[in-house]
């Protein structure tokens, strides 16, 4: 087993009065996919915000490559190679692919007051990086991001994160807003990133998607880690039941059947 690149020890977060997260311990390994499962409000977003430096935990410690770290800002987290890609890709619909790819880190050419943004290079790199993730339909860096499909936008954001040296990639519900075909694109991209040795944290409430790519799973319920297991150790039904708060889906099915009969 490799050394974990990111480790959480008993991380807690309380906002005024409420405990959003309690004693979460996790390990994230390079070249593996950790699926973070949980219903809405289970604490997934809070955990993502802690990992990406938006919130500081109120308890517990975070280690990167075995050394304890404190993230004071999102910039701190990205300096440690932790990149977060949000549901809608965190990209700019009315900017070109090349411009969007290099926002904040624009390559320049020329000197002094004539130093300028090398848009051609930016476009070429953006297209090349997206193609390395298997997106072949985007061939022109001048295309507007808004003309890409949802999956292609995710690919752009992921390609960007990987290109700029992310070794931990947090994907926040990347498949939630996508159709079946687009979602399978994104799952393929997750496997591509994994193959590049990136540690992927895949946050989702879609058990099927998680089981297709995950190596390791953690289920959050009401801010606590309810279960933690490896690929193949649980069935889909077991996970779904757990996420639904322990209330067996079978019960719900029976109840629904009753309603249907009485209607």
């Amino acid at each position, binding site marked *: 087993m490799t050394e974990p690149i990111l480790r959480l020890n008993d991380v807690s977060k309380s906002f005024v009065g409420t405990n959003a997260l309690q004693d979460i311990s996790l390990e994230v390994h390079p070249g593996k996919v950790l699926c973070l499962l949980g219903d809405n409000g289970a604490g997934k977003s809070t955990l993502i915000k802690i990992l990406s430096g938006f919130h500081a935990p109120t308890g517990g410690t975070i280690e990167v490559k075995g050394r304890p770290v404190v993230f004071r800002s*999102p*910039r701190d987290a*990205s300096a440690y190679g932790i990149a*977060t890609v949000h549901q809608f890709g*965190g*990209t*700019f*619909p*009315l*900017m070109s692919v090349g*411009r*969007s790819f*290099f*926002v*904040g*880190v*624009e390559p*320049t050419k020329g000197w002094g007051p004539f*130093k*300028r*943004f090398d*848009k051609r290079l930016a*476009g070429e790199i953006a297209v090349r990086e997206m193609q390395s993730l298997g997106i072949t*339909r985007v*061939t*022109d*860096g*001048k*295309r*507007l991001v*808004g*003309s890409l499909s949802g999956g292609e936008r995710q690919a752009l954001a992921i390609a960007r994160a990987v290109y700029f040296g992310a070794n931990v990639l947090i994907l926040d519900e990347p498949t939630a807003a996508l159709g079946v075909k687009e979602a399978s694109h994104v799952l393929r991209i997750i496997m591509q990133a994994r193959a590049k040795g990136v540690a992927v944290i895949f946050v989702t409430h879609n058990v099927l998607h998680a089981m297709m790519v995950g190596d390791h799973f953690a289920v959050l319920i009401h801010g606590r880690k309810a279960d933690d297991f490896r690929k193949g150790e649980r069935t889909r039904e077991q996970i779904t039941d757990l996420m639904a708060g322990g209330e067996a889906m079978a019960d719900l099915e029976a109840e629904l059947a009753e309603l249907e009969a009485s209607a």
Partner: protein
Amino acid sequence: MTVQISGAARPAAAGTSPARSLRNLTYRPEAGALIGTLGVFVFFAVFGGANFVAASGTAAWLNVAAELGIIAVPVGLLMIAGELDLSVGSVLAASSMTLAIVSGYWGGPVILGIVLALGVGVAVGLLNGLIVTRTNVPSFVVTLATLFGTAGLTLGLSRVITGTTSVAIKPDPASKAVFGTLVAGQFEVAIFWWLAVALVVGWMLTMTKYGNWILAVGGDKESARAAGIPTDRLKIALYIGSGFGAALVGVIQTILYNGAQVANGQSFVFNSIIAVVVGGVLLTGGYGSVVGVVLGTLTFAIVNQGIYYTGWNSDWASFILGVLILAAVLMNNTFRRLALSYAPRTGKKA
């Protein structure tokens, strides 16, 4: 201007053909604005007669365009970054009065008055920027407040200091030549200032990383911040820019007309927004170009002045402008949709 157009026309891989460059043009923010400008020009060239296209007619709308354009370009930049600046009208008046009082009423050196007048613009811009970024109050409200606040201060202080609301000034020949002369007897030197502002800002927006930052901040502020862009400092700088632009026009008007009035400049508040929006800038930010703003400014100025050459009652000018704004915005929306559906080679035709 030329910089941008040649940049756009440069083909990515395939050879250039007229059809291709025409299609490329339709994917640019200023495509609708160009049609608008040509349209109103042809319209008034036909109905305005020979006088409209003569040098005097051209000077009339170019002069209006130049003064408006010096303000519209930085205001457009702010709008691309997702913020409004309504305070420009009062900044213009405050800058005019500062120059007139310092160098006219008190008889100080003109250069001192100019520096202080521009300083007023920078100060109001800085204030706008600080309030908008620190409080998260919508910039519409913040700059509406500074529009009124600055207007009141200008009026109050002018009356306290000079006892009147209009002050005369006798600019020295050097300042007159730089800011307030008429080239060939009818073209304001402001036209060159406008060109310079448009070239510098246009270069910055399309060719430098700062331009990319502005587009990004206007497109999605949170993502831009997450990408490491100093969004607050950027916005403050842009507000200082629009304050400076308004103050510059204040200086130009004061030196050109040998005096200042406290009520100067209020028409620029909405006219600058009209020019920017007609120029294809998206009101909510993230999309637009300096070429577009320049074209929008020209369109506005042509309608504004062209009406006098038609022999029609000038009461109709505002009506035409209203129709024009609506038409321009609808056209710009269409072109933006076209740009968003741009998927080369594979299938889906735009």
